[in-house]
């Protein structure tokens, strides 16, 4: 079993990273802050004005450490890739399946079944956790959404066309996000969720969701690349230059359990409040430095938690799930599995 490796996040303005022997050295204001052996890392994420020496970039590429550059708000800017690894035969299979409408629809449907069931689990967990603190009206609407998600998942199992998969995904997303606000236990009117908004996120909850999705996207993309698949060619997300279609596909089933649930807990535990956000003139909300740090720490800690993987029947660190799913996907492409088994969170 692969070990869950750590990701190094650097968000200090003007920080500089360089290579020394087999280690990544973090220098801030001319002071060496840490020297991290590369065998403990599988990714480096730089926010804003952070520099990496060219030898370090080469070294990371050689050691399969994914390096991404993000804007201070977590929007993806660039990444450093080494030689395309993995097996060309596997990638050919991927392309053939992506070009085959029935095959692509089957994988896409499996991904969205996973996504829908995981959204349902988020709702069910909230119903259980909130207990009597939820009003009857809220409980009824969350329960109704939960039933709609069950129904969508059932209908997805019977679909064989990409367009209907997309339609059902939209239906599930609408039911889920329509009641998402009910899952927030904080009474503060500044922390209301009024539907999903992105580019820009128009409220604090959306800002945290977008930020966590960017972190999850980084992990999914490197998991796919390490497995040797082509991150650009997806099944549900069709090809578009510069878009990592397969990484977005893989992300779908993991958004709710990994990101949404964490965002909800951080607000409900009052680890984040209205004062942690900056509002720009255009109405866009962004996380302030200190709050972003807290979100990253929570995200890293969440990835270390262990969870039971229902398909593999093993306990595994949450942070390994993207890699495990990418491996299951490649087994399904090779024909070792009859279909893609999505990660279903119980």
């Amino acid at each position, binding site marked *: 079993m692969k*070990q869950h490796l*750590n*990701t*190094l*996040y*650097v*968000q*200090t303005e003007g*920080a500089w990273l360089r290579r*020394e*022997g*087999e*280690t990544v050295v*973090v220098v*801030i204001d001319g002071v060496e*802050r*840490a*020297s*991290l*052996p590369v*065998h*403990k*890392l599988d990714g480096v994420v730089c926010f804003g004005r952070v520099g990496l020496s060219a030898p370090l970039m080469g070294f990371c590429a050689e050691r399969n450490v994914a390096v991404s550059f993000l804007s201070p708000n977590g929007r993806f800017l660039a990444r450093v890739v080494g030689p395309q690894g993995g097996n060309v035969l596997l990638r050919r299979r991927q392309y053939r399946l992506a070009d085959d409408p029935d095959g692509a629809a089957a994988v896409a449907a499996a991904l969205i079944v996973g996504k829908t069931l995981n959204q349902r689990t988020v709702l069910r967990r909230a119903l259980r956790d909130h207990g009597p603190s939820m009003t009857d009206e809220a409980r009824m609407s969350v329960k109704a959404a939960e039933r709609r998600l069950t129904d969508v998942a059932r209908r997805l199992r019977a679909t064989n066309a990409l367009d209907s998969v997309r339609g059902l995904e939209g239906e599930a997303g609408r039911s889920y996000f329509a009641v998402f606000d009910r899952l927030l236990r904080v009474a503060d009117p500044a922390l209301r969720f009024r539907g999903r908004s992105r580019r820009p996120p128009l409220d604090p909850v959306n800002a945290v969701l977008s930020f966590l999705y960017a972190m999850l996207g980084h992990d999914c993309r490197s998991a796919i690349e390490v497995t040797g698949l082509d991150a650009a060619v997806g099944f549900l997300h069709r090809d578009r230059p510069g878009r990592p279609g397969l990484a977005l596909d893989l992300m779908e089933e993991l958004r709710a359990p990994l990101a949404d649930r964490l965002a909800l807990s951080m607000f409900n535990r009052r680890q984040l409040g209205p004062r942690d956000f900056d509002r720009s003139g255009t109405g866009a909300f962004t996380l302030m430095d200190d709050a972003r*740090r807290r979100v*990253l*720490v929570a995200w*890293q*800690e969440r990835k*270390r938690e262990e969870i039971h993987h229902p398909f593999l029947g093993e306990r595994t660190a949450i942070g390994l799930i993207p890699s495990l799913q990418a491996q299951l996907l490649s087994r399904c492409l090779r024909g070792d599995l009859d279909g893609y088994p999505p990660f279903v969170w119980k």
Partner: protein
Amino acid sequence: MMVLVSYDVQTGDPGGARRLRRIARALKDHGQRVQYSVFECDVEPAQWAILKQRLLGEFEPDKDSLRFYHLGGNWHRRIEHHGAKPAIDLDGPLLF
């Protein structure tokens, strides 16, 4: 698994400074310096075999000493730190 490595190198004799430097460099590649001649290395068994070989290749058995303390997988419980320069937990959030 965690291995604590401490060493003493006779720096007085010719080549001593070189051995000291090279041993420290090998340890830096695999772990974290927690005190002047003490490193904590969280390594897989295969990596440990490589590191150990490298260390034993550098040192002079009749002049220097190397000590390996195997703390196993449950090492978090076995280390307690007081005072200055706490080590970074390489498994914890790495955020700078």
